[in-house]
């Protein structure tokens, strides 16, 4: 009798323990997250991973205005009056290596690059019958475009510009593979090496991209970015030719007036599409937040500099001034109105406009051929839109005067869109030509370029700090 009980109880216990050790009950998957494997399980998730790279570009520190605002106020377009000490440091060329805003720029841009690396690495191997080779190639191409755009921004912020060292200076670490657990300590590639990688990414991306896609990478966007790269490097013929390809591509054309901002017109070659629930809202700033006065809900940190007001005033009646500004009656400061929604930061980011291609080609042709009709023809539509009289070839006394005039047009067109800093540095010009900080703003002055964040120096012994920040 006892024996039966023992068997019975042993059975019961075995059942109980067996029940409680059911091991597949431990195979739980996260519900708000996808594991790295499932992030590329099929076409839909692979597309999500690619879209995530675009989403990263919306971050405050990537194309959410922070680096672009710095580009305009560290140069002569903006009189920065914001209260963030870390941003004030950059403004006064007293930046330290532990500047937390700069650390965040470094962090978020590399987060985008690594997310893009994962797409580039994993998408070709996704096994999904409906996921065609063409679609895979397009996804990889879009990721390469975004990686190129981001590396370009990074090398512009953290490395000596081309004219100072001819591209031999330390750029930023080139990380081209996804992170898979092995921590590597990459050294800084040279500026030339980074540029070469950007060019390679873009050239590889070009054939796989569509000609038109709002808010996404297109052939035109790739050509435009390549044009900008060659322009920054002084490779005039390529810059001119690529700009021409975009202009003649038939997809993009000048908007008739300045109401195109955030409207997804043919003006925009590549713009980031922001919404009220996007990163701009969750971050602590955004384009309109920085640029709008307090009355419009912004921070009022970045009004026009007197230098820029004077530049517009030199040719009275410029619609780019009169129709695109807000006054603050209290301080009589002038603010740009290119970005209007300071509450939710829904303004799209004008990363590349067709206008820039006119300016690129006009400048490149002027560098190649001096004063020339083709350049004048490229600029005159911009002037007409701004309500200014057309140029004629005869009005320019010298080639240099012609080039300088094109650069002034470029400044007035692209002010507050993040171009000004590099447009000066690539020409070996000081960021500010007057005022108490002019001496500190020379192209080869130490704090004109940003420091490699101290945290990175500490964690990665291969990194060498920029001069003046050691």
């Amino acid at each position: 009798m006892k024996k039966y009980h023992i068997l019975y109880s042993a059975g019961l216990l075995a059942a109980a323990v067996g029940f409680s050790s059911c091991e597949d009950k431990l195979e739980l998957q996260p519900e708000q997250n996808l594991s790295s494997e499932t992030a590329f399980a099929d076409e839909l998730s692979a597309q999500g991973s690619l879209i995530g790279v675009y989403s990263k570009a919306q971050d405050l520190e990537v194309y959410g205005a922070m680096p672009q605002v710095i580009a305009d106020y560290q140069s002569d377009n903006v009189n920065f009056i914001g209260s963030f000490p870390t941003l004030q440091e950059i403004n006064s060329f007293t930046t330290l290596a532990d500047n937390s805003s700069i650390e965040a720029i470094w962090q978020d841009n590399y987060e985008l690059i690594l997310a893009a690396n994962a797409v580039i690495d994993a998408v070709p191997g996704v096994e999904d019958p409906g996921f065609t080779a063409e679609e895979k190639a397009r996804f990889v191409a879009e990721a390469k475009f975004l990686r190129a755009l981001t590396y370009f921004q990074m090398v512009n912020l953290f490395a000596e510009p081309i004219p100072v060292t001819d591209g031999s200076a330390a750029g930023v670490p080139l990380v081209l593979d996804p992170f898979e657990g092995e921590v590597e300590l990459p050294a800084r590639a040279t500026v030339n090496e980074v540029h070469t990688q950007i060019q390679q990414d873009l050239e590889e991306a070009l054939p796989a991209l569509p000609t038109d896609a709002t808010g996404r990478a297109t052939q035109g966007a790739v050509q435009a970015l390549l044009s900008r790269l060659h322009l920054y490097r002084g490779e005039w013929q390529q810059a001119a030719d690529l700009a021409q390809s975009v202009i003649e591509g038939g997809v993009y054309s000048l908007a008739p007036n300045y109401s195109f901002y955030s409207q997804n017109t043919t003006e925009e070659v590549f713009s980031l599409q922001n919404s009220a629930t996007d990163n701009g809202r969750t971050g602590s700033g955004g384009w309109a937040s920085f640029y709008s006065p307090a009355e419009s809900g912004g921070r009022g940190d970045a009004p026009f500099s007197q230098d820029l007001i004077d530049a517009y005033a030199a040719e009275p009646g410029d619609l780019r001034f009169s129709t695109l500004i807000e006054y603050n009656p209290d301080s009589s400061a002038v603010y740009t109105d290119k970005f209007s929604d300071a509450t939710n930061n829904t303004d799209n980011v004008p990363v590349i406009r067709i206008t820039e291609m006119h300016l690129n080609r006009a400048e490149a042709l002027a560098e190649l051929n001096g004063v020339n009709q083709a350049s004048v023809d490229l600029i005159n539509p911009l002037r007409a839109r701004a309500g200014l009289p057309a140029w004629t070839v005869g009005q320019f006394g010298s080639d240099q005067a012609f080039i300088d005039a094109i650069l002034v047009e470029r400044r007035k067109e692209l002010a507050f869109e993040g171009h000004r800093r590099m447009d000066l540095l690539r020409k070996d010009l000081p960021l500010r030509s007057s005022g108490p900080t002019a001496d500190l703003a020379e192209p080869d002055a130490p704090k004109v370029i940003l420091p490699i964040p101290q945290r990175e120096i500490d964690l990665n012994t291969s990194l060498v700090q920029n001069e003046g920040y050691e």
Partner: protein
Amino acid sequence: MMYSSTNYTLEQRIYRLFGAGRCLLLFALLGMATTVLAQERTVSGKVTSSESGDVLPGVNVIVKGTTVGTVTNVEGMYRLSVPSNESVIEFSFIGFTSQEVTVGNQSTVNINLAPDVQSLQEIVVVGYGEQSERFNTQQISEVNSEEFANQPVVNVQEVLQGRAAGVQVFGTSGVLGSQSTIRIRGASSIGAGNQPLYVIDGVPLNDGTYSNTYGAEALNPLQNINPNEIASISILKDASAVAIYGSRGANGVVLITTKQGKNAEKTNINIDYYTGVSEPTSYFDMMNADQFREFSAAFMTAQDPDNPVTPADFPQGSFDWPGAVLQTGKVNSYNLSASGGNEKTSFFVGGTYYNEEAFTIGNEIDRLNGRFNLNHEASDKLRLGFNIGLSALDNDRINSDNSTFAPLTSAYLQTPYVEAFEEDGTYARTGFVANVLAIEDLSVRELISRRTTGNIFAEYDIFSGLTLKTSFGTDLVQTEETIRDPDIVEAGGYGYKRIIQDNKWLNTTTLNYAPTLGDRHSLNVLLGGSYETSTINRIAVEGSGFVSDQLPNVASAATPTTTSADAAQWALTSQFGRLNYRFNDRYIFEGALRRDGSSRFGSDNRYGVFWAVSGGWLLSEESFMQGADFLNLLKLSVSYGTSGNDRIGELNVFNIQYYPSLGLYEAGPLGDYGGVPGIVPSQAANPNLQWEETAQLDISVNAALLNNRLTLDASYYVKQTDNLLLGVPLPYTTGFTDINRNVGSLENRGVDLLLSGDIMQKPNFTWNASLNLGYLHNEVTSLPDDNQDDEGRNFVTGTSSQRAIQGYSINNFYLIRWKGVNPQTGDAEWLTKDGEVTTNPAATDRVIVGSAIPNWTGGLTNTFDYKGLELSFLFNFVSGNKVFRGGRRFTENPEGTFNKSTDLLDYWQSPGDEAFFPALGSATAPLFDQRSTAQLEDGSFIRLRRVTLGYTLSPTLLSQTNVLRNARIYVSGQNLLTFSKTDLEPELNGLGTDPLGQGEGFFTPPQARVITFGVTLGL
């Protein structure tokens, strides 16, 4: 260990545990049942205890050698048919020596049963069972209900304060329902939490983050638990006690046993009511409007003599903000319960309504609790039962600490010339520091929490000594959090609602084998398995823009800014066992083993095995000790073993996920773009991630002397934790900020002491005293070298004021040293790293200036009883720690419009002055408030935690009423006296359970001083 006497008697406890034995005996008898000739007649009688004279219900009365038997009833009476005069009746009752009586010709057999001295020992609740305290080798502190009955507390953790050696309890703040920090034998983790595992009647409780922080910390997840329902609390401390909880035992385990009825007992009804008032124990002394204007004018003028300022230059209003947010708190508690049972079934049923209004405006708690516990003997072999606790709690919350919406913070900082009301009596908009009177009057900040915790169980005796038990338990937590700010508080109005459900269920099945092996051997084997899983679901909506304050819900908002629903699940499967062997009642060996599998870890490290061995030696039983009559017990025990900590991946309020080892992508607003959903990488994979593991050695001595009147328990322990879970920083060029890794180790060593004695035992006067003491030394023994300070020491940053440093404790304050105001110059002076005086210190001058962890904590309880008049008090003390009061960086800032402490009025004026504040014109004056030891205070204190004066009416008087069984009235005080080196609250812990943020507060509301009056009636 602690001698305990819960509100059921020892006999009843043993009965509950070993009641099975009677049935087993019956079973054995069944097997040898013989035919008996019928010459039956009836015998009856009464069974009483020879010691107390009380009647004994539930005694087994069996005709020896037959299956015939019965048990005594509530009055201790039995009636039995016996076959013949030669029949032998056997009376047996656990805890008493069995007696056999030959019937002879008696028709009435009254019996006095003598307590069995060997087994007459306290019972202590251990993991998955109970054990005799005398033969127990585990180190367990027990706190029983009498010690905290009718104490006005919201949090069950608070009742442990000062009650148990080696258990440090820090009340987070005076905010109702705020988190309590408990550390059992020290902090054994940096990144994975230090809170113990709480288990109620065998159900491990959910204790996630169920509420928003409101400037301080999320509320206590256990605030629904009703202290009135608790019979006893066992705190498992050493490895032999916690190993059976495996991967969740490293921080200690708190076992809560709820009240049960007793078999064969008439129904007792208990009524408790108390009412009380409360006030803050301390508060900042702030300037009034005139003082503010005068000081500010003098300061501004001294700093910039070219631009003199006069008091008349400031607005001329005046308002007493601190006075307006403080009030007299009120507490009321109504408790009604009934318990009892017949021979087969016992029950406890009870309900409590608790209401407390805090001493700060706008903070109130309503709590309703119900409990129904039932045990039933379905047959000789089968027992069934359930324990169910229900509760609903409504917490009208306030912000606190680092929030301008917090009543105290705002009242301290609001410029005293800013007035609360417009001339027409409506609330004024007061600018950056919001009008807290309007907030508390018009805004809603409410947390409703509903909780059902319980289990059903069945227990079956397979054969003598072998019992199978299975239990299904559940812990269902639902919280509903509402925020609604009207237009005056948040322009346009703001609404928020979040509902969280955290639902657990588990099954535990155990097989317990306790054979009878003769006098010299005793064996108890436990084998078991359990499966446990919990799923958390959260739904949140948020919106702004309301057309009217009359619309309370987010549905009326113009702009919905958040619509979110998320969920996560974890699961744990376990197999465990324990073997306890005792030889000759002198030598004890115990081994415990547990294997846990957790969904939280990657498949490479999903399973962990934890174990402990312990040995005990009762020296007092040895022949060579028999001469020492004064010594009733001398026991030496040693234990060593391991346990783990799996609490990772749930600390983040914003992203619930229990998957710290996986590489993850995150979806939602952070991943989408242009209307297309997307995902972004959010966590770096570490498939090798595993449990933190704590190994603990414990050496303990237990002694009882002088006829058990004096007892001493002493333990020495060393707890070594390895594989500390930390987020190790990665270069950003990996695309990630950090990665979860097992790196580092730390050690806690200490001594727990408990000394208690019956000092006076006179018929009309008794005096009991008990002293518990814990000494703790905490040291981080290894950390990753990613972060090194100037001295080359590895560290992990906690807050701006503290960090964990290798070679030191995990809670070091790391600050610039404040020297004082130079009496000659009037300048503020600090010390550099090298100890040189400086007027302009830098961050590099920071040094270790103390620890937030006390070296000594303890409590002293005294109880005097004179003819029913009882006085008891508990002093709780803490020593050797520092507290950082961050709010002083604001109240002692001479500049700006925030109000200032009256301490600043003591400023240096002429050479020789020993002033608090530097000369107003000194260049160092504006630096006075910089973070330094100027805001660091000594955290040591002695506090009269509780004092009670009560009178119990004499039982003889009550018996004449025929209604009342007992009656007691009492007056009780909490925190009436505090001795400390600071005038402000010394128990400062505003960051709550944050492992690296101990002993800091901003404007943390202080503990309440409460006086209650109560009455207890038994029917």
